[in-house]
């Protein structure tokens, strides 16, 4: 366990004492990692497999996507919108909206507001939507409830402080789809540019959130849109709302997308530091690095290295540079989470805990693996969900 508490490494890969993948920059600290005879990690192989399966960036991949797009249009005839696109103000979702309009779709933009948005995010959303004349549906959680849930996760000492946002987003996308009788949700995830986040420090499900909140929360959950297992099954098996990820089929470059967005509608890049949402910012630039001696920049960096956009040395060096912290971010976070300086330091110093120490649906997901395999084959759940949640976790405790 002591290995896991290593802080930033020397910025030269050769000098590192850790085993690092020979192809990307994931090192042995990544949960669930193992290396083949050539030193290549299983996550690289996972991405390769997905690329082969989805024919990413090939003519066939494009044609598969086209088939799906035609189905979307067909199913959407006579309805106000034919697809849902979750928006955050970030690169992927903003670009996805432009593509959707280009493809002739009639999207409804959907946003879950955890009340920690920065002006950049809100303005980006506004600019993109008004340029494209796309309507917006939002669900805003009560700000005090939002704080209470984050606070609960902070006191629980786990890494997934953003679990409530991620899950709520998923639930709100489904609710919007249900309200307008839309059967397709388009998501901007790309395993090529981001990889599949290892489950180790990024688990979220409704039971996990509920149990952490009931142990450490102080306010009733009322406005927070909790996705229980029952709701999850309802959305996937009964409402049959499909999740489509166009960037799994197409070539996609985040850099090109950003340039395009800046040109077309004065969209602003918030930097790779998640400044679009202050809770994300806190998580990625302070909480994870300081408490877990890690952060999730390695996901994007590893992906860039895999694609040859960065050398391994460059990726490793950047990963081991301390992240930029927005001034006053910590004060803002403490204020909203109602933490004194002492409380904050005390809790940060406590040993980190893991999601598997709390009640979750994980066993249930594993038990129902055949069902989810079927659902993944028909895009009713994303394939990445199946890979992450339904396969038994290789515990490296």
């Amino acid at each position, binding site marked *: 366990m002591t290995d896991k508490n290593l802080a930033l490494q020397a910025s030269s890969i050769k000098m590192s004492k850790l085993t690092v993948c020979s192809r990307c920059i994931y090192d042995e600290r990544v949960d669930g990692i193992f290396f083949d005879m050539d030193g290549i990690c299983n996550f690289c192989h996972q991405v390769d497999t997905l690329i082969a399966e989805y024919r990413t960036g090939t003519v066939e991949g494009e044609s598969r996507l086209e088939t799906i797009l035609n189905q979307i249009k067909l199913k959407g005839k006579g309805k106000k919108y034919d697809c849902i696109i979750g928006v955050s103000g970030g690169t992927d979702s903003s670009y996805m909206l432009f593509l959707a309009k280009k493809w002739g779709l009639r999207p409804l933009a959907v946003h879950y507001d955890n009340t920690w948005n920065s002006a*950049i995010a809100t303005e980006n959303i506004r600019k993109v939507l008004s340029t494209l004349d796309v309507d*917006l549906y939002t669900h805003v959680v009560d700000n005090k409830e*939002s704080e209470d849930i984050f606070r609960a996760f902070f006191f629980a000492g786990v890494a997934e402080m953003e679990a409530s946002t991620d899950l709520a987003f998923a639930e709100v996308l489904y609710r919007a789809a249900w309200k307008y009788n839309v059967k397709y949700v388009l998501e901007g995830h790309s395993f090529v540019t981001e990889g599949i986040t290892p489950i180790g420090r990024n688990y979220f499900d409704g039971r996990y959130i509920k149990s952490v909140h009931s142990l450490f929360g102080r306010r009733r959950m009322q406005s927070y849109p909790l996705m229980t297992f029952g709701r999850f099954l309802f959305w996937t098996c009964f409402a049959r709302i499909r999740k489509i990820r166009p960037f799994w089929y197409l070539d996609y470059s985040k850099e090109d997308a950003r340039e395009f967005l800046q040109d077309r509608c004065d969209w602003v890049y918030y930097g790779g530091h998640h400044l679009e949402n202050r809770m994300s910012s806190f998580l990625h630039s302070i909480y994870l690095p300081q408490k877990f001696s890690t952060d999730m920049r390695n996901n994007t960096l590893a992906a860039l290295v895999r694609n040859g956009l960065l050398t391994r040395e460059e990726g490793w060096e950047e990963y081991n540079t301390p992240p930029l912290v927005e001034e006053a971010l910590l004060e803002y976070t403490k204020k909203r989470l109602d933490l004194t300086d002492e409380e904050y330091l005390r809790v940060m110093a406590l040993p980190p805990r893991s999601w598997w120490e709390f009640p979750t649906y994980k066993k249930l997901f594993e038990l129902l693996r055949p069902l989810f395999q079927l659902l993944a084959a028909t895009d009713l759940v994303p394939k990445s969900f199946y890979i992450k949640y339904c396969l038994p976790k290789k515990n490296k405790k």
Partner: protein
Amino acid sequence: MVRTRIIPTLLLRNESLVKTVKFGKFSYIGDPCNAVRIFNELEVDELVFLDILASPRGTEPNYKLLRDIADECFMPMGYGGGIKTAEQAHKIFSIGFEKVFLNTSIVNNPNLIEQISTAYGSQATAVSIDVKKNIFGNYKVVTCGGRKRTALDPVIWAKEAEKMGAGEILLTAVDCEGTWQGMDCDLISKVSSAVNIPVIAQGGAGNIGDIGEGIDRGGASAVALGSMVVFQKQGMGVLVNFPDKKLIEVELGKH
């Protein structure tokens, strides 16, 4: 010449920001401090915060929340909601607000206006007048978050407030609030033409043209926006924003 002010008015309910329709049903908008940060970035002229439960519940202003809000704000701010005494007003000023808006309490105690404006200046003392039509179609002042009807005529009441030392009037047409259907220019012009102090018109603005009308036909010195600054568009999702300043200037330039 002072630019015509366009002022986002944000409603506080407990510790959340909400938006109502005709002073009734409300939707969650978000966190007040976070919204202020966004308005800072958008460089709006001024913000007004109104606590919609303070008078109905008879509670004190939430000074802690107001302090948190003031810490984030680099533009002038006004506060209204439950202010009954000069001491309370003093507390609000020392937290960092420029103005207080008096509403329910002054109907029975108009001297409060004089007390506060003598001590802090008329420019810091504003009066908030909520107006609804009664069954005869006459404009009447309502108080306590729209829950209590009075027999007061808004024009007479506005003049009285001016006499007592108010520096400004926030005039809200309750029947238009949250409807996006346009402002009540009749009401606005009746009151604006009766007083010499600035009148901020509120209630019903749904687009930039409505803002222009409120100023031109209504004669208001400023316009307060509610729904327009917290929703993407009518009937759609929450999105804190401010109308395009260039478009506003063009519209105001017409009048």
